[in-house]
Each structure stands twice: as C-alpha cells, then as structure tokens.
C-alpha cells in the first residue's frame, strides 16, 4: 500500500530523500578534494557544515542529529584527528539548527545566514577549546584573526548565497496570521471556530 498522498507524491518524496542523501554523502569528499580550489587566503569554506545546517533546518532534530553524527564521523575518519570530536560537534550543531528551524515561524534566508554564522563560530571556538591550548596568547590572536573570523565570514557569505539561491528556486510556503484569517473567512473550514 502506497503513501496516502499518491504515486506522484511518493516519487517526489523519494527524489527529495535521494537528493538530501547525495548532498550529505558527497559533502565530505567534496570538502577534501574540490573545495580547496575555492579557498581564499587558505580559508576553505566548510561544505559539510553548510549541507548539514540546511538539511537539519528542514528535517528536524532527529535527522539533524543523525546526519551531523555521520558527517562528523566521516570527517574524523579522514582527518588527522584521532577522536570523535567532529561527530559530537556536528551532531550537536545539527540538533541546534533543527531546533532553530522548529521555533522560527517565518523561516527565510536571513535566519539561515544567522544559523550558519553562529554554527561556524561555535565550531571554531569548540575546536580551539578541544585541541588547544595555545602555546602563547599571540598564537590565539593570530588564529582568531587569520582563522576563526575569516572562516566564519566565508561560511556565512557562501552559505547565505547558496541558501538564497535555494530559497529562490523552491520558495517554501510561509504562513502568516493573515493567511489563517483568509482561510477561515473563505468558508472552506467547516469545523468549530474557537
């Protein structure tokens, strides 16, 4: 027995799942091979993070957690690190982004940009706290100036641009109180109105 929304809905749902899956599976290989070519001043945009945030915002905390943990594990595996640091942090960021998506009534590009900026900054700071400490204060300042801030700015800019394009193409429906009033006023609702 097929899904209640019919065959075309099932195909669309399957295509959506395949699309998200491909995005998440390709994120880490892309990061380690292709993304270096768009580096500016040695700063490489964090493709797995951008993919994860977009996925988590639209798919909820459980999916965000699972995707974050999987992406983080892949990063842990192919990076020089020997811990599961990225699995933990990416899973947490996935949950956080999904919760922001849940509580934000009017989701649009600005919200996603803010989510990217916050996530990128949090990831950078958590790395410094976990992998540090710095030998000297000068190293920390140098890292903040040449690493943390440019990375956050680059992630935010690229993420904002990509999410803007995504929104422009998909135009997700945004419901307002006026929509609700119009709906009840249209007479299509036959139930009791409180």
């Amino acid at each position, binding site marked *: 027995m097929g899904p209640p929304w019919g065959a075309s809905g099932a195909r669309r749902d399957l295509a959506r799942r395949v699309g998200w899956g491909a995005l998440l599976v390709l994120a880490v290989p892309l990061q380690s091979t292709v993304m270096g070519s768009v580096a500016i001043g040695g700063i490489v945009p964090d493709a797995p993070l951008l993919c994860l945030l977009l996925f988590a915002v639209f798919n909820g905390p459980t999916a965000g957690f699972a995707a974050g943990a999987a992406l983080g594990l892949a990063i842990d595996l192919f990076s020089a690190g020997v811990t599961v640091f990225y699995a933990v942090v990416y899973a947490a960021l996935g949950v956080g982004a999904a919760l922001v998506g849940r509580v934000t009534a009017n989701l649009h590009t600005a919200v996603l940009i803010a989510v990217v900026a916050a996530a990128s900054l949090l990831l950078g700071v958590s790395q410094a706290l976990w*992998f540090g400490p710095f030998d000297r204060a000068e190293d920390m300042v140098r890292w903040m100036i040449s690493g943390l801030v440019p990375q956050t700015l680059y992630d935010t800019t690229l993420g904002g641009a990509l999410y803007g394009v995504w929104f422009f193409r998909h135009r997700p429906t945004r419901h307002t109180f006026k929509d609700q009033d119009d709906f009840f006023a249209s007479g299509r609702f036959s139930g009791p109105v409180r």
Partner: protein
Amino acid sequence: MGQSVSGSKRVWLVAAGLAVLIGVLVIPDWQRRPAAVVERPVAGLFGGVQRVLTSTSSWIRGVWSGYLALVDLRRDHQRLQDDLDRTVRERDALREVIAENRRLTALLAFQATTTRPSHGARVIGRDPSRWYQSLTIDRGSRSGAAADQGVELPTGVVGTVIKVFPTASVVLLISDTHSAVPVLVQRTREQGIVEGTFGGRLRLKYLPPSSDIRAGDVIVTSGLTDPFPRGLMVGAVNRVERPEGDLYPDVEVIPSVDLSTLEEVLVIERLPAP
C-alpha cells in the same frame, strides 16, 4: 502601300549600301573617317551598356560567391575553432604531462641519491576538517604503507603518515600544530624541535639559550627519530626573537616545501626493527 519602297528603288538602295560597305572595306581612308563617326557613339553606347552589365554581373557574382564563401567561411571557422579548442586541450594536457614528468623524474633522481628506500604516492585529498593540516595519499597498507613513515620531497620534509587505510593514508603535514620533528641548525649543529603554527609556518623550539641562530640559517632533520633520516631539508630561519623572560629564542622557520601545492610525494620506508 504608299509608304513602301518600290522594288527598283530597294535594289538601288541595297546596291548603294553594298557599294558603301565595299568602299569602306577597300578604301583605308574611308575606314578611318566615316566609320569613326558611327563607331564612336555606338562604341560609347555599347561600352556603357557593357560596363553596366559587366559591373552588375560581377556585383551579382561577387555577392553570390561572397555569400557562398561566407557560408564556407563560417563552416571553416567552426572547424578551425574546433581544431583550435582540441589543440589547446591537447597542449594543456601535454604541458601537464611534461610537468608531471619533470616532477617524477626529479623524484626518481632524488630516490636514487637517498640512503633509505622510498616509494612514490599521489596526493588525492586534503584534510576535511578545519583544524588539522593533513593530506590523503593513494598509498595504503596494501602497498606497504605504515603509520609513522616519513613523507618527503626532493625539496624537503612534508610530514608523517599517521593513519593507514587499505588503499590510502593520511599524512600529517609538518605545518600542523600537532607535528613535531627533531631538527638541527646546519651551521651551528644545535638541535631543537620544529613544530607547526597556525599561519602555515614552523616554529623552532628548545634551542640552547645561548644559541647563535640567525635569519637565513638552514634547518635540517637531525635523524634522531625514525621517520626521517639525517640531513633532510626542513626550511630556513625567517625571524629570530629573544623575548624578555623567555629561556629559549623564538625562531620562525619557513618550510622549504610549498605544502599547499603538493601533488606527488615520496613515502620513506621505516628502518627494520633491531
């Protein structure tokens, strides 16, 4: 037919015409003078018509042949453009092959000069995380790669193998903050440890407090630990500072290898266990 000429008159007229023509034919002087009187306007008229016809036909021929030529030209242009594109692609590919050939030749020549056996490997990826500076090579345990093998180039030290998969390995670059390589200053023979910093440069630590190290000094591996044999180039001293209150001088070293553009590397075999 009142207006028609009678038969005898017609005969006379024909005869007169013939006589004139014969006269023109046989008397040279007549050929020049009276003929010229007729010839000039007729020739002028005919010449004009001829010129107009000729130029018109040549214009039409030109337009037609030009149009056809344009059609051919477009085709030829497209074909030449395709040829050019293909040639440029082949040239770029050849340049790439030549560059790769030079690099591999240099690697082979260098391999022949080193005392420790080493094996070539291709760089297939960079570290996917933001923190570490590492790269992935296409040489894994199936090809004999093992953890703690040194990785080098003819121009100097690259890093150390830290993770080994069946068909690939992860190499921690010397510029990573977690990397530490025992070195010595070639001029003074003083020993120290080179570590990575966040700016992609190196820091030479634990030199003797009275060290005479100067900018421009060459830093080489000391050979005290297994991954690297003695004397491999690490870099050159860029800056030496002696902060007040610090026991050791603060020495910044620029790596001799451009770690951001690596394509092939040599993995050094480890020494057999004693």
